[in-house]
């Protein structure tokens, strides 16, 4: 048995999620090969070769893969992956974009967003925004799987697997990259941070998020938001935590001015410790919070920043 793991990266650096995917792949059994597809991505292939448990890295370095266009990546993965037993990618917006195409082209189902591996063909995944947990078994010859990286612990980085180049070039004429606006931030990435502090509608506007920034700086925390805060234009979309945003499971999650709708809880309720700051003592967020502080966030946040 062999597992093909699709490396998550942004052409500059390998994402930490990849070592978590390897951890999931290890539980599926067999040799693990990693595919790095990108443009100018030799350094990323080297980084992938260091991950424990990896038997081989295949690198497809071509402009066609620079922006991870689903049409091109899917064709590549189908060509390279058709003899594998499992094809695994992160349930990131990249993996979610191309993997169902891979599954359809291979005429197999996709198992989305798994949080556990019971056996090589049986997987655990949340449904209904995490309000139910399904155990599913696949009889497909190739299992196409996206993994919720936050549910797996990263493996170590003490390996030196061989790196092999693939010259497969897949370019679709029907789709092209126009541009992107990426959020630049000095802070740790939301899905990788040990501490996350998120603001909701209660923050009232974008400027007030500076109240969270001071605290985030002191704690080396990432900043997140509820959908209401994103919809209202306080902060950009990539900060949304929840069913349709990012799924986080940090050591500490601090929810400020967030009511605790099920769609928000779906993105953070696996955090180790949850703190809720809300002026409404009936807010549902308190039902999942380890520590709740009832009060006005505009009084609490400056005091909190001073006392940590």
């Amino acid at each position: 048995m062999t597992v093909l793991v699709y490396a998550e990266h942004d052409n500059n650096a390998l994402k930490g999620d990849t070592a978590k995917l390897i951890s999931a792949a290890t539980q599926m059994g067999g040799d693990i090969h990693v595919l790095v597809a990108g443009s100018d991505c030799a350094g990323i292939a080297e980084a992938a070769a260091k991950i424990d448990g990896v038997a081989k890295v295949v690198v497809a370095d071509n402009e066609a893969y620079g922006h991870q266009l689903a049409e091109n990546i899917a064709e590549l993965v189908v060509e390279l992956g058709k003899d594998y037993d499992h094809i695994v990618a992160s349930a990131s917006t990249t993996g979610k974009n191309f993997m169902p195409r891979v599954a359809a082209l291979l005429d197999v189902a996709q198992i989305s967003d798994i949080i556990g591996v019971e056996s090589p063909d049986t997987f655990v995944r949340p449904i209904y925004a995490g309000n139910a947990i399904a155990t599913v078994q696949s009889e497909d010859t190739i299992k196409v799987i996206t993994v919720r990286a936050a549910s797996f612990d990263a493996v170590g980085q003490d390996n030196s697997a061989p790196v092999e180049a693939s010259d497969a070039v897949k370019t679709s004429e029907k789709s092209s990259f126009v541009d992107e606006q990426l959020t630049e931030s000095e802070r740790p990435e939301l899905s990788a941070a040990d501490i996350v502090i998120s603001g909701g509608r209660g923050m009232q506007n974008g400027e007030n998020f500076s109240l969270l920034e001071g605290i985030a700086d002191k704690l080396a925390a990432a900043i997140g938001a509820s959908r209401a805060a994103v919809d209202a234009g306080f902060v950009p979309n990539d900060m949304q935590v929840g069913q349709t945003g990012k799924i986080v499971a940090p050591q500490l999650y601090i929810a400020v001015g967030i009511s605790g709708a099920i769609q928000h809880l779906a993105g953070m309720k696996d955090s180790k410790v949850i703190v809720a700051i809300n002026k409404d003592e009936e807010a549902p967020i308190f039902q999942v919070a380890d520590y709740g502080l009832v009060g006005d966030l505009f009084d609490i946040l400056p005091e909190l920043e001073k006392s940590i």
Partner: protein
Amino acid sequence: MKILVPVKRAIDYNVKVRVKADYSGVDLANAKMAINPFCEIAVEEAVKLKEQGVATEVVVVSIGDKSCQEQIRTALALGADRGIQIDTDEKLDSLQIAKLLSKLVEKESPDLVILGKQSIDSDNNQTGQMLAALTGMPQGTFASKVDIDDNKVKVTREIDGGLQTVQLDLPAVITTDLRLNEPRYASLPNIMKAKRKPLDVMPAADFGVDLSSKVKVLKVNPPAQREGGVKVDSVAELVDKLKNEAKVI
């Protein structure tokens, strides 16, 4: 330009779901059902394109038993022109749905297919991408902005790092994210009008698609419950607990 909008009947997003006592699934008996929120956004986008004179016809399709006609009627009340129910009693996976839709695309030849990015029950996020692959169409997933220009469409996509814009040749598949638009409410006169709009029923068996799934649900469990925590009285107490009890800062 013709737009096809597949919609799914799903549990209303406000309903708190419960797992059945025998762990065989989620208890949907008497649960309030609705159009999946992302599909509703897809309908709204198609109707807006028609109002702007870009589209000429909006066709909605739902796959399921007779009950999904309710959601088709809702979409018609929101402004779609006609509906199709692909009739089946079976619970299908995304791949089977995508195969049925790809056959319908052959019949209807839409210039654009707009779907919700995921349904809030199975949370799969697959159907649009699979349909695109099966029909050879390019895809613009998780769309927060759609601009049609002649025979091309520019789609701004919500991605983990921010926003990405791609340009696709038509025909194309688009899946909607939450910020693409805010769906309107159907007015009473439009709800009445929708009752008279055409709704065709096509048996799924006539599509020549193998509807069996290779994925079995073995069991469905409730999630692990979090222990209720404590309320603290002050910032000082909170910081003390985080430092000395939870040891996370």
